[in-house]
């Protein structure tokens, strides 16, 4: 591991160590959700931080992953792994179909079009065909080859293993030729094309890849909560993804994990100020964008002169 990823090493150590020190802590649950949402942000960073393509429809992709897994296991009795694979497949397929017309758009047109997609998914899962507003309940715990992840601790390690594997994969994508071509597309699409980069394909791959991670996160979410309903998948989720990404640092891959942690732990500390949660998050967002465009990871790296 390179020294420039010192922050990542610290995150891994903290995550691995936490349950050893506080085995019964309520925070395990909080951190599981941090991991699940962090997983979406990791993929989202490739799309937005690297490739420069905004999506406000990731709540829809997350929902498809979650509902596909929930339906496959609960209604059709599929085993977990198969259900998750099915969820990834269908989410990627839908992302691909949605990506064909929308990824041609740029800037806020893309943001609005993907937001439209998110609304469509949200409206669909509110219909009776998908359980209506009470959603789907009785989702069995995740089990792999007979081992059931039914304790918080085992689920915690499962989620974070997936998260860190994804971080490694995304770093490898981001720090090699693919990542450079995404950054090239980010800055100047025509110049990128003149370097032999298929701009449409580069965007599509990043979009579908991020959809796959959102789908995995959705599956993990469904299995953990055992109940899912449409309220968890509205536009606020996509907004929060943006917040997590820029809070932690776009283009750093793992910065979003810190962003997710802050966003999820904030309410725990607020106590009776809970009503101010959104206000404080908004304020944090503004301050970060104005003073720390590289996010917390970018700021820390600058401070420690790691890059």
């Amino acid at each position, binding site marked *: 591991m390179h020294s420039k990823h010192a922050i990542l090493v610290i995150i891994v150590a903290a995550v691995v160590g936490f349950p050893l020190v506080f085995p019964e802590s309520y925070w395990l649950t909080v951190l599981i959700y941090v991991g699940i949402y962090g997983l979406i942000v990791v993929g989202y960073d490739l799309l937005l931080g690297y490739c420069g393509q905004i999506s406000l429809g990731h709540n829809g992709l997350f929902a498809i992953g979650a509902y596909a897994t929930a339906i496959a296991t609960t209604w059709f009795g599929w085993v977990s792994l198969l259900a998750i694979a099915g969820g990834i497949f269908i989410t990627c397929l839908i992302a691909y179909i949605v990506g064909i017309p929308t990824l041609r758009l740029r800037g806020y047109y893309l943001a609005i079009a993907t937001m439209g997609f998110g609304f469509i998914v949200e409206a669909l899962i509110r219909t009776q065909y998908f359980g209506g507003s009470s959603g789907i309940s009785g989702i069995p715990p995740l089990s792999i080859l007979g081992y059931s992840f039914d304790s918080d601790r085992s689920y915690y390690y499962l989620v974070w293993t997936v998260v860190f594997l994804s971080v490694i994969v995304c770093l490898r994508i981001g720090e*090699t030729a693919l990542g*450079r071509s995404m950054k090239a597309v980010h800055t100047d699409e025509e110049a990128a094309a003149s*370097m*032999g980069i298929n701009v449409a394909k580069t965007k599509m791959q990043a979009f579908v890849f991020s959809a796959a991670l959102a789908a995995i996160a959705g599956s993990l979410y469904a299995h953990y909560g055992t109940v899912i309903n449409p309220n968890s998948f509205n536009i606020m989720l996509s907004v929060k993804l943006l917040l997590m990404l820029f809070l932690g640092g776009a283009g750093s891959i793992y910065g979003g994990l810190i962003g997710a942690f802050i966003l999820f732990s904030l309410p725990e500390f607020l106590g009776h100020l809970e009503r101010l949660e959104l206000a404080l998050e908004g304020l944090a967002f503004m301050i970060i964008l104005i003073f720390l465009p590289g996010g917390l990871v970018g700021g820390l790296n600058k401070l420690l002169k790691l890059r």
Partner: protein
Amino acid sequence: MNHSILSGRSISKYFGGLQALSMVDFDVENGIIFSIIGPNGAGKTTLFNLISGFDRNYEGEVIFEDEVISHIPPHTITIKGVARTFQNVRLFKNLTVLENVAVGCHGWVSPRYTRAIFGLRTSRREERSIEGFAREMLAYVGLEGKDNDEVESLALGEQKLLEIARALAAKPRLLLLDEPGAGLNDREMDNLQEIIFKTKEQKITQIVVEHNMKLIMSISDQIMVLNFGTKIAEGDPQNILNNEKVIEVYLGKEKDLA
């Protein structure tokens, strides 16, 4: 005996009612330096945009190595062997100097997700070969040692050279240089000329759009003169210098300026 690497057949291009190019025909022989000159707005950059596939909405045909490339998207044209630079430098500002050149290697590397995810060794080897070649190209234009610099810390002249290095990293057989000399001082101009000659020795055909007549006259094997989208003359430098029509619409004016 030298057959042409690039040809244009009856190329016409309109922007609304304005005719930017009108029935332009040309043949570029393999291995030469072919220059395009003419007043501003003559259609030079427009022609570059058609050749490189940025603009595919035109009449006529562009033929590269015996293949019509008129309706092929730009990245495919680059992969086929045509690379270009831009009149206004268009580097990737979010990448370092070396990374910019590495992006140029994209066409012949064609990186894949599966390789990045599963092929640890292959992708490392791939990165090493990209890095090696990119360094070679940087040294080729005289920018060695600037690997990790930020693009914006380079002087304009260096940025122009970096664009050439980036284009050469694509291993083209045809290189389009859009005003490579604009904004360069005398020393940088000499350096540029040397790079262009060196590139010719590599058997890479070059098409150069340029206003600096001193550079044009010393490097060109063949010159095409455009005026208001029409080809008004074509020939070797001596031929063009003595062409009355060219003197009237272009060179005369340049001399007045001098």
